[in-house]
């Protein structure tokens, strides 16, 4: 991606990520940023009315990196943020596994919060990932939620 900083990252990967390492990358040699906000998404045991035992994450390989990079660029154009690290896992995941990480550094607390939140809201609606849950009653594709569209709408009100 076209980025302003070697510490930026957009990665779609099957392997796990290490939050401590990602945090260190946001912080290293960075005395200008007073605020770091991150979001971490995990596989939880209950979703849409079923006991979940695992999750398979399908994606559109040719598109995922491009979509995520576009979302990060939108955030960078909108807020005075510095470093952004975005990781999304694909493939078979288990209970409590890490799915997604978004970390943002900024000299401004509000910008770091808003940009991190924005990236997650856009990713939920505009990046080509699909979750198939494994339950004791069989597999089922996760359905989209109206609240995710509403989460996105709030960023458009401000435009």
């Amino acid at each position: 991606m076209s980025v302003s900083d070697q510490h930026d990252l957009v990665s779609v990967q099957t392997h796990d990520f290490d939050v401590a390492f990602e945090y260190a990358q946001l912080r290293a040699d960075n005395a200008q940023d007073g605020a770091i906000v991150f979001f971490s998404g995990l596989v939880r045991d209950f979703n849409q009315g079923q006991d979940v035992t695992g999750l398979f994450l399908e994606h559109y390989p040719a598109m995922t990196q491009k979509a995520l990079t576009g979302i990060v660029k939108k955030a960078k154009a909108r807020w005075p943020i510095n470093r952004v690290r975005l990781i999304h896992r694909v493939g078979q995941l288990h209970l409590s596994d890490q799915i997604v990480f978004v970390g943002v550094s900024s000299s401004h607390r509000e910008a770091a919060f808003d940009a991190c939140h924005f990236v997650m809201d856009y990713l939920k609606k505009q990046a080509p990932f699909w979750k198939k849950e494994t339950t004791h009653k069989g597999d089922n594709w996760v359905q989209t939620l109206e609240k995710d569209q509403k989460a996105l709408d709030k960023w458009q009100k401000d435009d």
Partner: protein
Amino acid sequence: MINVVFFAQLREQLKSDGLSLDIPTPCTVQDVQQSILTSRPEWQDFLSNPALMCAVNQDMVQLTAPVLEGNEVAFFPPVTGG
């Protein structure tokens, strides 16, 4: 020729992850959709689902978006990552 790809629940419903389509270009995503349904009328219920999303060359677009020779057109259910 254009390349058509399907993902997730739609891929399972159609039992197909995609196909190549010989269609006059430029056309629209909707033209692509209709052309597929002409040869595969049994896909009607799934491929005409108004909730489906589509992309041309890996950018999300509306059904009215243009499609050019050699483009990749994708159809898929609403995304649920994150």
